[in-house]
Structures are given as C-alpha cells and as structure tokens.
C-alpha cells in the first residue's frame, strides 16, 4: 500500500512539472490540455489516497518503511489508524476539489496549476510521515505551496497583502514546530515516531513542547488568537483551493496537534494539558461563529465558520487530554471520537460549502451577500446541495454536523467527572460557549443561505446565474451525499475510526457504536439518527397525506406585499433590492448583542452639516480581538526593532568590524561550552 502511495506522490510531483514544461514550449501548434491533465491526475491521486486510507482503516496499520532507498535522510513513511483517517478525508476533499477544478479552473495560470498537485502531495506526505523530519518537510512544503496558491491573483493589492500575512503566519508555524520536533527527539537525535513514543517527554520539556505545538499548529489551524490570516487568505485563493485549504489543510494542522500532543507525548500527561486546548478551542468557536454573522463576503463568512469548527474539534481533543490525565479512559475515547468525527464531517460539509460558493461566484460573478439573492431559481442543483451543507453546518439533525456535535456535547456534559472543581467550572463555561457557538453557527448559516439563494436577485448577474457543468455538480453532490450518509451512520463511522482512537487514547470504544447510532456511557445518552430520520419521514409523510386530503390542490400565485414600500420602477426587473433584508441588516441583532462586547462592533450615523446635500450614512465596523491582542503589538515590536537596527548605519568603521568579530567569538564560545557538556 505504501508503494502505491509513494508512486502517487511521485505522480503528483510529475504533474507539477507538466505545466511548467508546457509553458516553455513554443507558442503556436497544438497546445496540451494542461489543466485537464493536472486536475485529472489530481483526481486520480485523491481517489488513491481515499482508497488507501479506507483500506488501512479496515485492514489495519502499515509498518514504517523509507520513502525511497538512498535518500539524504531516512524519510520514513507509515500508515497507522490516525494517518489513515486523515488521509481518507484528504482523498475525499481532494477528489471533490479536483472535480470542481476540472470544470472551472483548467485555464488557471501556470503557477496555480504547478502548485496545486504539490499542495496535495505535501499534505499527503505530512500525514504519511513516520518521523519528525518527514513531518516537517511535508508541513513546510504544504505551507509554501499553499502560499503560492493564495497569491494566485497577485495582481490585486489585497491578495498580495493576504499572501504576505499568510506567509508570516506560516513562518511562525515553522519557527515553533522545528524546535518542538527537536525537543521531542529521543536521545541520540532519533526523531522517528517509534523512538519518541518509547521515551515520551516529561516535566518542563513537555510543557515547552505543548506551548510550541499549540502556537505552531494552532497558527496553521486558525485557532484564536492566531486566526487573523484565515478570513483574509481564504477568499484570496481560487475556490477549489479554498475548499482544499479549509477541508483538508486545517485538518492537517489538527493532525499535528493530535499526533504530537496526544500520541507522541504519551498518555502520562497531567489533566491541565487539556486546559490550553479547551480555552483556545472555546475562544475560536465563539469568535469564529460570531464573525460569521457579521461578515458580508460569502467566502469570508465560511472562513470564519471554519475557525469555529476547528475550535470545536480542538475542544474535543482538549477534553480527551484531560480525561486521559484523570484516568477516565472511556470518556477520553468519547471526546476523541467526537473530535475525529467532526474532523471528517466538517471537512466534507465545508468543502461542499466552499465549492458551492465558488459555483455562485462563477454563476453570479460575486461573493458579496448583498449582490446575490434568488439563486435557487437559476441554480437549483447548487442550492439543493448547499442546503444540505448549510443544514450540517447549522448542526441540524439528522445531518452529519449534528452527530459529531452531539457527541462533543455529551463529552462536555460528562466533564464534571474529572473531579477537580477548577476544571469543572472551566468545562461548564466551555459547554455554554460550545452551545452558544452552535446556535450562532445556525444563525450564520441561515443568513448565508437566505441571502444568497432565497429572496429576489439583487443584481442582474444574480438573476441570470446558472448551474455549472456536470463535473462541478458532481463535486457538490458527492460531499452532500456523504454528509447525509455520515449523518445517518455515526456509529459505523466511529467504529471505522477505532484505529485512530487507539492511537489517541489507547482505549477500546467500539462497544458503544452500533449500526443504528451511538450510545454513550451505560445508557447515559443515545443518538439514533436513523430512528430520528425515519420518525421525521413518517410524520412528514403522514402530515402531507392528511393535509392533502382536505385542501384544494396547487397554489395560487400573486405579487408579494412588500411591506408597504413604493412599487419599484419599470427598469428594476426583480424589484428594488433595497427593500430586501441586507447582509448588515440580518446580522444587526447579533452584532449589537454580542458583537459590541466581543468584536468592538460600532455603528454611527454620520450626518452631514445642515445645508450640505450629502446623504446621511451609517458607518459601521468591527475589530477582531486578535488585531488588538496579537497583530498590533507585533507590529509595534517590529517597528521598535527596525528603529534600533537603523542605528547600525551610524556606526564607525571600527565598530562595524567589531560587530562580526564579536559575533564570531560568541559563537565559538557557545560551541566550546556545548562541547564541554
């Protein structure tokens, strides 16, 4: 299986070279269908990933072996349960993304076509790595390839600054993760996972690793307060790349958290290890879902929703850490299972939502909620698929989002069993925040679907939007179908994740997952989605039949009463857009209730002075807390350092010579000291 995967990685690297070579060919003559080749190959590779992931989950782990003989470093690859679970998700997301790209991104510039397969290969390499060096190699390659993709439309200034911000955070990840792997290394510098697992870190060394990994992987996953790049970089990338970034790349960062903190650091860590994860997770969940209610760009809104969902996943991992520290193995399994299930479910429904938003952007030429509307008429397939995704993101039963959030809430409701009063109070707060963020996400998703697909078109382009070609429709219908399926079968999916759970909590949990659903504890709670779905279907059909028998068939159509607004002029075919709810208007209650304290949201009516015929305007805005807490101090620090460095220019010649000499002496002294130890 690893041979097949290595060959697939090689195929992706070759695919990356194809567009570069094709661009070198002389113009004129028959041009290669480069886009078709790249995206078709990526589709094939993604299907191999999904199949191998599923195969390893069903057939058991594959032992480590080197990527290629005689390479410059060991480069061990392996496929255990945890890797396989994420690899399966990467395959599914990659396949949908490639299908979408086959319809819409074949004419992309060479830099995008070349970076796309590399991005896919790097993520797979990160997941397959069985030693710290390969892990870092894959992770950094992933950061670099995705930076190229974020900078795809670099002729626009805002995309350039988005890519720059993204690169800064990627470098931060690298700066933190390289020493973390170094600290994890077993004596003798062996960084293979087996060696690290044999001697897990302890005490202060483990605490430093926790901090470094939290910052390094958290910056990539978009955990608050390190999420500032995410709502800016996601909209900058092409839609199929955004789907891959949100569906798979954030999950690779979560994989790093799970692999390094839960698996490699061993089960002997104390309860408080879960606390930073819980705090950052809860903050991400609330800030992300709240921002999703005030953003007015569809992709930015979805990016904020990704922050929320990653937060929920990290809450699950943090609970698993804490339960494991308190020797509550079964509960640790429950929390880790909730996190794993949400990783898969969120990966799929967020891919669906981003691809659907991409379809909207192609069809209606805008992502801004205030320029869309009524798309359900022209894009029925996209609307139906998006409705499934929106329902799952809003965690409505019986869809997949509800199943994993139900598990997570069950784990949170059991958190009081840890016993420590401080932890109980923390878990209580986190439970309230998780419920708040779930409800906020519901509001955000209703806002997204209602403003984009319902109502009247707000622009002529929105009125003329149409569904994409068939491959793009399949790219939406496939994740929609899987979202329904995984929603109905959380039990079998949890059983499938057993190998991954073994890695995370070393605890058997399969006895609680049955075909019909999930039962936690000794009957402490049960969620049987097939029963719920059947009940809804039977009652719905019964109501429909009973109502049909007594009412006249069909409906009459007439113009809507538009709240007493003046009739629109003749040239506004779809009615006056300003009489419809707007993106700002729909978000206004939550913006005022929660946005004022949490996001420093403000709104002011700017009145022109008397006599001035200018219109009065509402000036509204908000500031993410990370801007004030992280970005602004870092920017001030940068300015202060550069001001100090400026003083070097004024040094005399002797001082200029002293500086490198002194550095040399200091470095030699350091080496001498290290040698002496």
């Amino acid at each position, binding site marked *: 299986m690893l041979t097949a995967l290595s060959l697939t990685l090689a195929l992706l690297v070759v695919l990356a070279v194809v567009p570069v070579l094709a661009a070198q060919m002389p113009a004129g003559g028959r041009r290669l269908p480069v886009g078709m080749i790249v995206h078709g190959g990526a589709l094939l590779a993604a299907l191999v990933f999904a199949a191998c992931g599923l195969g390893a989950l069903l057939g058991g782990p594959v032992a480590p072996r080197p990527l290629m003989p005689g390479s410059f470093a060991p480069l061990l690859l392996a496929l255990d349960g945890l890797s396989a679970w994420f690899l399966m998700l990467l395959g599914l997301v990659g396949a949908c993304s490639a299908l979408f790209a086959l319809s819409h991104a074949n004419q992309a510039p060479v830099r995008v076509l070349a970076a796309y397969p590399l991005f896919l290969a790097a993520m797979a390499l990160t997941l397959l790595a069985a030693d710290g060096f390969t892990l870092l190699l894959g992770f950094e390659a992933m950061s670099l390839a995705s930076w190229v993709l974020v900078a795809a439309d670099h002729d626009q200034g805002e995309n350039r600054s988005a890519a720059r911000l993204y690169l800064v955070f990627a470098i931060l990840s690298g700066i933190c993760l390289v020493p973390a792997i170094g600290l994890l290394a077993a004596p003798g510098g062996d960084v293979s996972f087996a060696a690290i697992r044999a001697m897990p870190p302890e005490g202060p060394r483990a605490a430093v690793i926790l901090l470094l990994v939290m910052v390094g992987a958290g910056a990539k996953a978009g955990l608050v307060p390190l999420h500032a790049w995410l709502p800016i970089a996601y909209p900058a990338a092409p839609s199929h790349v955004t789907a891959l970034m949100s569906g798979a790349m954030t999950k690779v960062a979560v994989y790093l958290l799970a692999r390094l903190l839960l698996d490699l650091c061993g089960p002997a860590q104390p309860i408080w290890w879960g606390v930073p994860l819980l705090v950052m997770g809860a903050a991400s969940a609330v800030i992300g879902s709240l921002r999703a209610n005030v953003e007015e760009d569809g992709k930015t809104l979805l990016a904020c929703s990704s922050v929320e969902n990653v937060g929920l996943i990290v809450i699950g991992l943090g609970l698993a850490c804490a339960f494991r520290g308190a020797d509550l193995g079964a509960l640790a399994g429950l929390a880790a299972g909730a996190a794993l299930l949400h990783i898969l479910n969120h990966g799929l429904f967020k891919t669906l939502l981003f691809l659907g938003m991409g379809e909207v952007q192609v069809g209606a030429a805008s992502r801004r909620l205030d320029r869309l509307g009524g798309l359900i008429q022209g894009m029925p397939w996209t609307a139906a698929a998006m409705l499934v995704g929106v329902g799952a993101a*809003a965690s409505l039963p019986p869809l997949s989002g509800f199943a994993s959030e*139900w598990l997570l809430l*069950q784990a949170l409701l059991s958190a009081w069993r840890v016993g420590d009063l401080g932890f109980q109070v923390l878990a209580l707060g986190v*439970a309230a925040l998780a419920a708040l963020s779930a409800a906020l996400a519901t509001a955000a998703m209703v*806002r997204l679907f209602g403003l984009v697909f319902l109502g009247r078109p707000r622009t002529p382009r929105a009125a003329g939007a149409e569904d994409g070609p068939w491959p793009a429709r399949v790219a939406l219908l496939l994740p929609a179908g899987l979202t329904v399926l995984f929603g109905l079968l959380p039990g079998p999916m949890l059983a499938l994740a057993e190998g991954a759970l073994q890695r995370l909590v070393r605890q058997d949990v399969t006895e609680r997952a049955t075909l019909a659903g999930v039962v936690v504890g000794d009957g*402490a709670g*049960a969620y049987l989605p097939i029963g719920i779905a059947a009940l809804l279907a039977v009652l719905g059909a019964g109501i429909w039949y009973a109502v049909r028998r007594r009412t006249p068939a069909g409906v009459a159509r007439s113009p809507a009463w538009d709240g007493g607004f003046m009739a629109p002029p003749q040239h506004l075919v779809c009615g006056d857009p300003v*009489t419809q*709810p707007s993106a700002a208007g*729909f978000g206004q209650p939550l913006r005022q209730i929660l946005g004022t304290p949490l996001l420093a949201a403000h709104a002011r009516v700017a009145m022109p002075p008397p006599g001035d015929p200018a219109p009065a305007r509402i000036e509204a805005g908000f500031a993410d807390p990370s801007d004030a807490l992280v970005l602004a101090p870092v920017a001030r620090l940068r300015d202060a350092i550069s001001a100090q460095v400026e003083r070097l220019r004024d040094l005399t010649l002797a001082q200029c010579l002293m500086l490198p000499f002194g550095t040399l002496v200091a470095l030699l002294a350091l080496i001498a000291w290290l040698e002496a130890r």
Partner: protein
Amino acid sequence: MTAVMGVLTQAIHLALLLVAAPLVVGVVRWLKARMMGRVGASPLQPLRDFLKLLRKRPVLAENASWISRGAPYVGAAAALAAAALVPSFAHGMALAGLGDLIVIAGLLALGRVCMALAGLDVGTAFGGLGASREMSFAALAEPALLLAVMSFAILAGTTGLDAIAMTFQEGTLGLRVSLGLALVALLAVAVAENARIPVDNPATHLELTMVHEAMILEASGRHLALWDAAAAMRLTLWFALLAAIFFPFGTAAPGWAPLGWVVGLLAWIAKMGVLCLALAVFESAIAKMRVFRVPEFLGAALLLGLLGALLLFVSTSLA
C-alpha cells in the same frame, strides 16, 4: 409484551398530543381574555381556524421557491417528532430511546430554521427581520437550555428525557436548589422559544415588535395552518417537558397499567391546566419587552443555569 405496550402508549400519546395542542393554545387565549374582562373565544377556536385554513388554497408570492411549499411540512414534522419524544401520561413509550434532550433541542432548531428560511424565501423586509431576530434570540436561549440539561444530566446520570423523568419521579433526589434555578432558566427559554410575552407577542402584527408572526406573514391556506399547528405543538411540547421534569407526579410506569394510565392522564391534564393558567397570568401581568432588552432576559436565564450547575459541583465536591 413491553414492546407492544410501548407502541400502544406511544400511539395514545400521539393522539393525545393532536387533541391537546389546539386546546392548549385555545385555553391560554380564553384564560387571558377572561382575565382582561373579555368573554373570549371558545377554547376550540384554534381547531376551527385550523380546519378553515386547510380548506383555503394558499396564495404564494410569484418568486416563492419550493422552500415556501416544503418548509411548513418539515417544520410541522419536526415539532410533532420532538413532541412525540416527550412523555405525557406514561413512561416507557416505544420511542423513548430516541428522546435525548439534546436531540429534542436539535429538532426544535430544525423547525426554527425551516421557519426562518420560509420567512426569507420571498425576500420581503418583514420576513428577513423576523428571521434575523428569531435566530439571534435562539442563539442566547440555546446555551441556557444546555446548562439546564447539564444539571439534569449530573443529577440523573443521563440526558435521556424519559430516564430523567423517571429518576425525578422516584423522589430520592429531594428538593434541590439547582433544580429550582434550572426551572427558572428553562421557563425563560420556554417563553422565548414559544414567542410569548415578554419576548414576543403572539397576537401582534406591529412591525416594531413582531418576531414569529413576521416570518409567516407570507404564509396562507394550508401552509399557515401548518405553521400555526407547529407553534401549538411546540407550546404543548414545552408544557409537557416542564411537567415531565419538574412535576413528575402520577405518571404511569412502563408496561400494561390501564388504571395507572387513567391516573397519569388525569394528572397530565391537571398539570397542563396549571401551566396554561400560569402562562395566562404571567402574560396578563407583564408587558412586552423592547427587542434589545430580550438579551438581558435570556442572559439572566443563562446565568441561572450556570449558577445551578455550579451549586451542583460545589455540593458534590463537599459530599
């Protein structure tokens, strides 16, 4: 045998709900009218309205999509499904295993989303306004509900509603301050979820204050009938939920117990009557709040929920 009894009690329960839902709304309206010194319509009036609306052909806006036509059925099914999971006169109904409190909250959210989407479907100002307010209030009500569920889960060791009700009926827990706080929190959530005064006024069509009515302003005929039925079912569900958890007296044990069922039925009718009266008195005595006062109301519920769970932690760690 137990399975057969489960199915039988479930069927009786469903029939009971269908009878009770219009009556609950009618009785509350009649009681409110009496308290205000009016004669009031007969308690059967909601049923008559329902049958009359069913006979009328719905009028839809020209640009209404299939959401407007499908959402009423899904909304009504979600409300009925949630209500079917809440025990009334007997425990051990066939679907009791499905009746997890978080699942019931999820089904209520499903109904709410259907109504909000239907409100947004035509693209009129009122529908969007109602949907936006409804979703915002729900965002504050949901955490309060979860914290109350947490108190029950700690005390009863489960989130299954039937099991919680049975544990509380045994009475071994005694009176708990936490339960009192959870009751107040749940009452506030119930008021918000059912769009009653002081959060919303079910009888108003004033644009400044409308929430629930604004979303179904475009609905007519059988669609309006279904929305009204879903609202009535939700009110019945919340009364039944409060009765099952906080007033669990007299409910029949699982299995074949005709006498117990009669006792349970009488007890349930009495409890529902008391709750109707309480709601009518509360709504008559209090005025509708400004929309932006509602967060304070629900925030207080959230704090009470937090306090209840905290007290439980402290008492368990002392014991």
